């Protein structure tokens, strides 16, 4: 059995979530279409609305500001294309960064093809997007700024409060991809100047195939929908609501709120244990910011070994790597390249992401495996 240290890619579902979902699927449960007028439909609708409140509660939003989608990728697309298309008449400029998730990058690239202009901000050497660089990129015709709260590869956490403040009074909408950060960091949307925020359930021990977009009511953010039809989700996202998926997300977010304080402490300690163990490897480099990071993510580059070999040698660990041979794009991590790492260091990088079920013993074994295999591979080339 491999050691699973890839919680940033996806998480196993919490058994409590699975239990709640199971009550919404079959004939003896809340299986009906929440749009139906009959009693089973009304019961399903009540379950959906309870889940909406649970999602809203994690980030201190109003339930009616939560729009359910098929995942964070759709939420990112809805936010970015939705604002751009709605605000088209006001301007055609978008600001984002080079180290956003593919969902944001690809949505922005599509808008470029449609005639929008995109400013792609560079991160600093620690992987942060400095608020000052956002300010410098703003133009009168900027309609949207999209900056992630926490980077999925590095775990670095941007100061979205500061970015939001500097956008106040400008008129550009601020979208934040919080797929990695929700449930890991406290988020208070009542206090943040954020217009749109994307969430995924499966990064927080919920099901795959469900996410949500927060769309601020005051001041109101308007969107052109991606998916038109029956007018579900206040017209912003049509399609029959998948009650079990939504209920699963609600339960996952409720559990995240409940566990966050102790889980953050526990994961911070585990990550520190991992880092203290691995920093003894000669020449190892930390990718990201030394203190401004998520509790559970550690990204390291290893000099003098080849990325795919390092990953395969450590095959007892389920971790992610910046290696070219293992990405669909056959390119080394674009995030690490944007930080200025060369191809070797970008490729020979491992992202360890720890989570709810990670133990100290697993961390210690990971340190042992990586240290042993790194030294073995380095010796082959020496």
């Amino acid at each position: 059995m491999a050691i699973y240290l890839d919680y940033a890619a996806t998480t196993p579902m919490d058994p409590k979530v699975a239990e709640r979902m199971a009550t919404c699927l079959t004939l003896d449960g809340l299986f009906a279409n929440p749009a139906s007028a009959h009693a089973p439909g009304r019961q399903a609708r009540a379950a959906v609305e309870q889940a909406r409140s649970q999602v809203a509660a994690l980030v201190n939003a109003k339930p009616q500001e939560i729009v359910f989608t098929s995942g964070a990728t759709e939420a990112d697309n809805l936010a970015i294309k939705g604002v751009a298309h709605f605000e088209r008449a006001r301007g055609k400029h978008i600001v984002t960064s080079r180290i956003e998730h593919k969902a944001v990058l690809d949505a922005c690239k599509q808008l470029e093809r449609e005639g929008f202009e995109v400013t792609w901000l560079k991160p600093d050497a620690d992987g942060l997007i400095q608020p000052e660089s956002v300010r410098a990129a703003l133009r009168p015709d900027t309609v949207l700024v999209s900056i992630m709260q926490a980077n999925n590869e590095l775990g670095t956490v941007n100061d979205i409060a500061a970015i939001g403040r500097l956008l106040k009074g400008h008129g550009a909408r601020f979208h934040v991809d919080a797929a990695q950060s929700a449930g890991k960091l406290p988020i208070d949307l009542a206090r943040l100047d954020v217009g749109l925020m994307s969430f995924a359930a499966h990064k927080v021990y919920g099901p795959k195939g469900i996410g949500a977009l927060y769309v601020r009511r005051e001041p109101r953010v308007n969107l052109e929908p991606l998916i038109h039809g029956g007018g579900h989700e206040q017209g912003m996202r049509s399609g029959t609501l998948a009650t079990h998926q939504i209920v699963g997300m609600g339960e996952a977010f409720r559990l995240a709120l409940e566990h966050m304080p102790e889980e953050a402490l526990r994961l911070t300690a585990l990550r520190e244990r991992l880092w203290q163990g691995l920093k003894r490897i000669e020449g190892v480099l930390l990718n990201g910011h030394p203190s401004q990071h998520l509790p559970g993510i550690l990204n390291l580059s290893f000099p003098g070994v080849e990325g795919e070999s390092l990953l395969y040698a450590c095959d007892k660990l389920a971790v992610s790597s910046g290696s070219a041979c293992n990405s669909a794009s056959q390119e080394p991590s674009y995030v690490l390249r944007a930080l200025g790492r060369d191809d070797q260091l970008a490729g020979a990088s491992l992202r360890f992401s720890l989570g709810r079920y990670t133990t100290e013993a697993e961390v210690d074994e990971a340190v042992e495996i990586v240290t042993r295999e790194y030294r073995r591979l380095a010796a082959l080339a020496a």
Partner: protein
Amino acid sequence: MAADTTAYRDAVWEHFRAPRNIGAFPAGTSQVFEGHAGSPRAGREITLALRLTAEGRVAECRYRVYGCPATIALCSILSERLPGQGLEALAGFRGLALTEEFALPPAKRAAGLVLEDALKAALARYNMTSGLKTA
């Protein structure tokens, strides 16, 4: 992304986990000819050393290698096959035949080609020195 060990055949995987004949010959060992190919920038680098018998056959093969699992495994596989071979057979070595034999994906052809280059470089070194001797 993380490791998918099913992409490689068992033999490749096994050689990667425990490469044979790794290292270099002690300085001053006679009849050793070394060839070098590739670079870390290019993703793989091989230094291949052949120790020959007085009859011009391979007695032993050692190497140092930086690269992907396929590169490491092919070095190890070749190091086991070379001993006993004559130089004419070595000249006919084709790296692509080896990558095909182990059903490596097209993206890994370069591993065979760099290995072939390293072997050719070692042979060139032999030809150069033996050429000097006859002269």
